[in-house]
């Protein structure tokens, strides 16, 4: 059996199963995640640089990046503002049905994306419950336009900001706010000087998580987007289109760009979380 270096050895000598559990963990991780994921990079390496560059910068794929990243940015921003308010209300106020509402915030995590997709499309199409009024009152169309993409991505990202800000607000020291108030600060000053700096790292983390999820999202978007090339075609859908044309290399090249982007986002999120923990003293 393998033991870790002697540093903190004594307490662990008793515990069994290190070799077995770590061995199985690494084996399963390699089999299910690492080897299949490496296929993307290995497939990309079989392309020439020119072919790769042409595949990932074609006009149609550039338009899809603009839509995917632009709509994700807008949706994550909407979620920072409203998710922050929802977290505040859930932590600080009492109102009937609060526990049920709190539980339902996780609905976008639990509801299959295809269900979300067809439902939002039905609601926002020109004869839907919501789309009907937007259309007749303002002539504003949501379904089958880039606005629809933003709506779907807002739904998908809704829980992230709420669930990152909520615990930080719960742990926030209210004594500080009381001290500020007793020293004559207005509630606006208390918010900008005391509360906002406390929850800011958590809000940024939530923003990054919602953004990362939105860039890769597929199921909820394809129904409402209309999927017109150059206008409302998201990058994940373009990968599928390439696959359906049997252009495996082209699909993989774009997937490679998306993977690198999500690794950078993952790194950013880890740093933000470390910062949040430091700020909230955990």
């Amino acid at each position, binding site marked *: 059996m393998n033991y870790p*270096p002697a540093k903190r050895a004594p*307490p*662990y000598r008793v515990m069994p199963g290190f070799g077995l559990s770590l061995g199985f963990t690494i084996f399963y991780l390699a089999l299910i995640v690492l080897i299949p994921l490496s296929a*993307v990079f290995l497939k990309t390496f079989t392309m020439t640089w020119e072919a790769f560059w042409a595949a990932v910068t074609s006009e149609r794929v550039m338009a899809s990046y603009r839509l995917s990243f632009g709509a994700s940015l807008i949706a994550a921003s909407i979620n920072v503002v409203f998710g922050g308010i929802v977290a505040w209300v859930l932590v600080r106020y009492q109102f009937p049905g609060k526990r049920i509402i709190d539980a339902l915030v996780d609905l976008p995590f639990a509801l299959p994306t295809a269900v979300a997709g067809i439902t939002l499309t039905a609601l926002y199409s020109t004869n839907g419950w919501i789309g009907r009024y937007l259309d007749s009152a303002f002539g504003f169309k949501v379904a089958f336009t880039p606005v629809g993409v933003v709506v779907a991505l807002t739904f998908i990202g809704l829980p992230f900001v709420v669930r990152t800000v909520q615990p930080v607000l719960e742990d926030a020291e209210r004594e500080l706010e009381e001290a500020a108030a007793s020293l004559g600060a207005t509630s606006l000053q208390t918010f900008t000087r005391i509360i906002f700096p406390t929850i800011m790292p958590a809000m940024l983390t939530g923003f990054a998580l919602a953004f990362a999820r939105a860039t890769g999202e597929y199921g909820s978007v394809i129904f409402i987007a209309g999927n017109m090339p150059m206008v409302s075609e998201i990058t994940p859908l373009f990968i599928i289109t390439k696959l359906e044309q049997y252009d495996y290399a082209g699909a993989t090249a774009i997937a490679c760009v998306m993977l690198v982007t999500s690794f950078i986002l993952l790194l950013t999120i880890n740093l933000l979380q470390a910062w949040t923990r430091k700020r909230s003293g*955990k």
Partner: protein
Amino acid sequence: MSERITVSKGVLEPAWVRVALLTVALGFLTLFLFVPLVAVFAEAFKKGWEAYVAAITDPDAVSAIKLTLIAAGISVPLNLVFGVSAAWAIAKFEFRGKSLLLTLIDLPFSVSPVISGLIYVLMFGAQGWIGPWLQEHDIKILFAVPGIVLATVFITFPFVARELIPLMQAQGNEEEEAALVLGASGWNTFLRVTLPNIKWGLLYGVILCNARAMGEFGAVSVVSGHIRGETNTMPLQVEILYNEYNFAAAFAVASLLALLALVTLAIKSIIEWRLHQADPVDAEARNMEHAS
């Protein structure tokens, strides 16, 4: 959750601010959560109860339900065993590269579902690594049930592990060490000491894993091949019906998935409540982990 907070008048914002914030928050949630949730069921029952029953007892729908249950029935136990094993190694021992291992376990969460499907096409497809070998031996993985199961396993890979790791780290090793020193075998210690301590966390991970396994769309869509009655899971069946403008049937199948989501949320809330009762600090730490 907020019962513990005592509100002193000094820090309460003006009444109109409170009313405004409550209105904005509830308005936003109504627009983005409650209305869509109601709409799923309203659309499903639009053509009446009989049409609903006919839609979900249609042979293609039934076969989709079966395949969904098979995919979840294989991937959840696999990831359960992995989750317990990974949590045991990471929470009970110190070793180098632990944070790298944690990051790698989280990887499937940050990969687009479409790419999660694509990687299996690259491995098992006709032009893939072992595609030609599979064809020679007449083994079908892609566009067949094994491919769907593999994609589901990948997508739900981290769920149980990431619930258990913080929980077991917070619990420490003392109880297990006591049992071992008193002569219990390693396996007995796990079954009698560790398992009762982690059972709620384990269940929590399993229901989240199961919800995702049954609802996954993007990854499964890439590897499925969309053969009706054979390789369609419930979410794929929803898509097919919807694209055929058979909206009532699409929403009928979708309503089953929405029901699954509601049951998942209910069980999740009950577990959270129990964990909170047992140890408020632990539960909050876990909440934070979960949100990340």
